[in-house]
C-alpha cells in the first residue's frame, strides 16, 4: 500500500481507504474468548424461570455435539420456520386518524394481521368489519369508506393523518405513498375532499408512553409532539387540549393560530372531488408567510413547488415570479454552501442558518422534465432530499421552498444544481460511497454570487469547494400576489 508523508494531501477516498484498512487490521477476533456457557440474564427472568434456562443449556450442548450433522437441517428447517414467522410478524403499522383512530398491523406481504379501533368512534366504524388477512389496500378502502359512511368526512375541512411505522425508511416511504394513494382514490370515489397528512415514524418508547398517557394513537401523538416542538407558542401543557381534538379541529386551530407545520406540511396532500378548488379553500395555513408554492389559483400561471411525493409535472417557477416581489425580497437570500449527491440523496448545506416552515423541493433536468423528489431531513444548517429516476452524467436543477433565513419571517425559495455522476450508478449500494467526493460534488446556487464567494472562502477547507460554487443564478423570494389572510377551513394546496 502506498505510503504518505506529512504534508501530502489525502483525498476523501484515500482517507476512507486508510481508515478502513487500519481498522480491518486492528479489529481483533475475540469470538473464541466469549464464554457462552454463561447464563442469559433475561431468560432467567422469564416466567418459567430456571427450568427454561436448564433446557436451553442442555439444548446448546446438543447443538454443539451434532452441529456438523445438523447444519443443513437447521438451515432448511430454520428457513421454513422463519418464513412462517415472517408472515405472522407485524412488519408495519398503518395509523389512520380522523377522529376515529384506526391502526392496521400488517405483515411483509401487506396483509392485515390486526385492525384496531383506538377510540370509541373507531370501534363504531369498524363494527362488523373483519379485516384480518385482508390486503392492505382493501382494508384502507374499507376503513376510509366506513368513515365516510359514518359521517366523519362530510364537510370541506376534512383532515386525515396517515402514519406509517416501519423499521425500513424505504419500505415506510413506499407504504406511505401507496396508502395515501388508496385513501385519495377512496375519497375521490366518495366525492369527498380532505387534506391528507402523512408521516413515517420509527417506534419510540417515549412516544408510545405519550400516546398512552393521552389515550391517542401513536401517529397522532407524534404529529402533535412535532407540532408543539416547532411552535414556541405551544407547550406540552397544550397536549391535553390538542389530543382531544379531531384532526379537522387540529388543522383548523393550526390555521387560525398560524402555527408552523414545518416538515409536516410538505407531506400534506389535498384531495379534491373536482379537478380544481375554489381559491378560498386553497390558501396556506400560515398566512403571515406569503409563499409562492402555495399559490392557490388553479388557473393562474404563477407557480408553485410540486408536492414532493408526487411526480406531477412542474411548471417553471422562475417564469411566474412577479418582478416587484423579487425586488422586495432582495435582502432575504439564503446561500447554499455546497451540495453533495450520493446514492439517490442530495445533501444541501447552507452557509448560514435557516428556519424551515414548509419544506418542499422540485427537481428538473435541463429539458424541463421533473423528477419525484422528497425532503427526508432538515436542520438549521442543511437538508437532505431524495430523488429518483435520474440519469448519470447529467446535471439537474433543484428548487427548495418553505424555508426562511434565520431571524427572518419571510419564506423564500433557493435554487441550486447538482450532477449525478456516471460512476454513481455503479456505486449504488456501495456502503463506502463518498458523499463528499469531489467528483460527486455538485454546484449550488442561491442568493448573490458575491455571497457565494464569501461562503466559499469561509469554509474550513477549500478542497472540493470550488467545484460546488460554480455558475449560479440567484433565485430570490417569491411571493403570492394575492391575499393570504387565513380563514377557517383553509387548506394547503397540493403542490
Amino acid at each position, binding site marked *: *500500500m*502506498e*505510503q504518505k508523508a506529512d*504534508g*501530502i*494531501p*489525502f483525498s*476523501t477516498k484515500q*482517507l*476512507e481507504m*486508510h*481508515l*478502513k*484498512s*487500519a*481498522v*480491518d*487490521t*486492528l*479489529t*481483533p477476533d*475475540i*469470538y473464541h474468548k*466469549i*464464554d*457462552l456457557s*454463561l*447464563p*442469559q*440474564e*433475561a*431468560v432467567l*427472568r*422469564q416466567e418459567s424461570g430456571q427450568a427454561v434456562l436448564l433446557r*436451553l443449556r442442555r*439444548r446448546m450442548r446438543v447443538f454443539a455435539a451434532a*452441529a456438523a450433522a445438523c447444519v443443513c437441517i437447521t438451515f432448511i428447517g430454520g428457513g421454513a420456520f422463519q418464513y412462517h414467522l415472517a408472515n405472522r410478524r407485524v412488519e408495519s403499522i398503518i395509523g389512520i386518524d380522523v377522529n376515529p383512530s384506526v391502526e392496521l398491523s400488517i405483515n411483509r406481504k401487506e396483509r392485515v394481521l390486526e385492525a384496531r379501533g383506538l377510540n370509541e368512534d373507531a370501534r363504531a366504524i369498524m363494527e362488523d368489519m373483519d379485516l384480518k388477512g385482508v390486503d392492505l389496500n382493501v382494508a384502507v378502502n374499507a376503513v376510509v369508506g366506513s368513515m365516510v359512511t359514518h359521517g366523519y368526512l362530510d364537510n370541506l375541512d376534512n383532515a386525515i393523518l396517515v402514519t406509517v411505522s416501519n*423499521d*425500513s425508511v424505504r419500505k415506510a416511504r413506499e407504504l406511505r405513498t401507496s396508502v395515501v394513494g388508496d385513501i385519495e382514490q377512496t375519497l375521490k370515489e366518495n366525492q369527498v375532499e380532505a387534506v391528507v397528512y402523512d408521516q413515517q415514524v*420509527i417506534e*419510540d*418508547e417515549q412516544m408510545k408512553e405519550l400516546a398512552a398517557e393521552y389515550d391517542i394513537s401513536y401517529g397522532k401523538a407524534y404529529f402533535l409532539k412535532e407540532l408543539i416542538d416547532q411552535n414556541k407558542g405551544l407547550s406540552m401543557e397544550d397536549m391535553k387540549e390538542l389530543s382531544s381534538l379531531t384532526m379537522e379541529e387540529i388543522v383548523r386551530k393550526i390555521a387560525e393560530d398560524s402555527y408552523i407545520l414545518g416538515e409536516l406540511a410538505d407531506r400534506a396532500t389535498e384531495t379534491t372531488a373536482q379537478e380544481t378548488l375554489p381559491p378560498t379553500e386553497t390558501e396556506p395555513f400560515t398566512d403571515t408567510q406569503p409563499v409562492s408554492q402555495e399559490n392557490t389559483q388553479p388557473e393562474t400561471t404563477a407557480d408553485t413547488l410540486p408536492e414532493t411525493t408526487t411526480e406531477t409535472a412542474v411548471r417553471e417557477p422562475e417564469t411566474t415570479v412577479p418582478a416587484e416581489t423579487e425586488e422586495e425580497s432582495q435582502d432575504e437570500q439564503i446561500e447554499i454552501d455546497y451540495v*453533495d449527491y*450520493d*446514492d439517490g440523496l442530495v*445533501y444541501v*448545506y447552507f452557509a448560514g442558518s435557516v428556519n424551515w416552515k414548509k419544506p418542499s423541493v422540485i427537481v428538473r433536468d435541463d429539458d424541463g422534465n421533473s423528477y419525484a423528489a422528497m425532503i427526508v*431531513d*432538515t*436542520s438549521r*444548517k*442543511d*437538508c437532505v432530499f431524495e430523488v429518483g429516476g435520474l440519469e448519470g452524467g447529467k446535471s439537474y436543477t433543484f428548487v427548495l421552498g418553505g424555508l426562511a433565513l434565520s431571524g427572518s419571517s419571510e419564506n423564500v425559495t433557493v435554487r441550486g444544481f447538482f450532477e449525478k455522476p456516471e460512476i454513481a450508478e455503479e456505486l449504488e449500494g456501495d*456502503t*463506502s460511497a463518498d*458523499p*463528499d467526493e469531489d467528483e460527486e460534488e455538485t454546484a449550488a446556487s442561491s442568493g448573490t454570487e458575491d455571497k457565494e464567494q464569501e461562503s466559499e472562502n469561509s*469554509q*474550513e*477547507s477549500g478542497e472540493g469547494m470550488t467545484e460546488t460554487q460554480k455558475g449560479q443564478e440567484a433565485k430570490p423570494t417569491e411571493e403570492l400576489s394575492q391575499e393570504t389572510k387565513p380563514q377557517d377551513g383553509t387548506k394547503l394546496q397540493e403542490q
Partner: protein
Amino acid sequence: MNDEGLLKRVGMGDAEAFQQLYQNTDRTVYSFILSILKNPQDAEEVMQETYLKIWTSAASYQSQGKPLAWMFTIARNLCYMKFREQKKQADIGLDDLDGEEAGEICLPLENLADAMVLKAALEILKEDERQIVLLHASAGLKHREIASSLQIPLATVLSKYNRAIKKMKRHLKD
C-alpha cells in the same frame, strides 16, 4: 437473517445466531468502541465484554428495529466503566483521558499511512465525529444507518462527517 432476527435468536440461546451476529457486527462494534476509547488494547477488552453482555442480555432486547443502537448502548456503558476503572487506578479525571492524551496514542499498524490517518482521526476529532467517521469509513455503515444507530438526525451525521473529513485533510496536509 438480519441482525434484528439474529439478536432475537440469540435471546433464545441460539449460539449459531450469536456467531453470525458477531461476524456481521464485529468491525462495527470495534470501530465504535475504538472511537470512544482511542486505544486498541482497551478497545479489544471492552469489545469482549460487550459481546459477552450481548450474549447474556439478548433476551431483554426489545425489538425496535435498531439492534445496533442497543449494542452500542452496551458498548458505550462498558467504555465509560473502563474510563472509571482507569480513573480509579490512575487517579486522573475522565476529561484527562478523553482527549488530552492525544499524543500518546499508539497504534500497532505496520502501514504508516494507515497509522497516520487513524491516529489523526483519533487525535483531532471530537468523540461524536470519531464515531461517525469510523462507523462510515471503517465499518462501512451508511450514513442513514449511523443516524439510526446513534439516534441523531441524518443531516447531522452528514454534516459532522464532512466537517470531520475536512478537518482531517487539513491536519494531514499541514
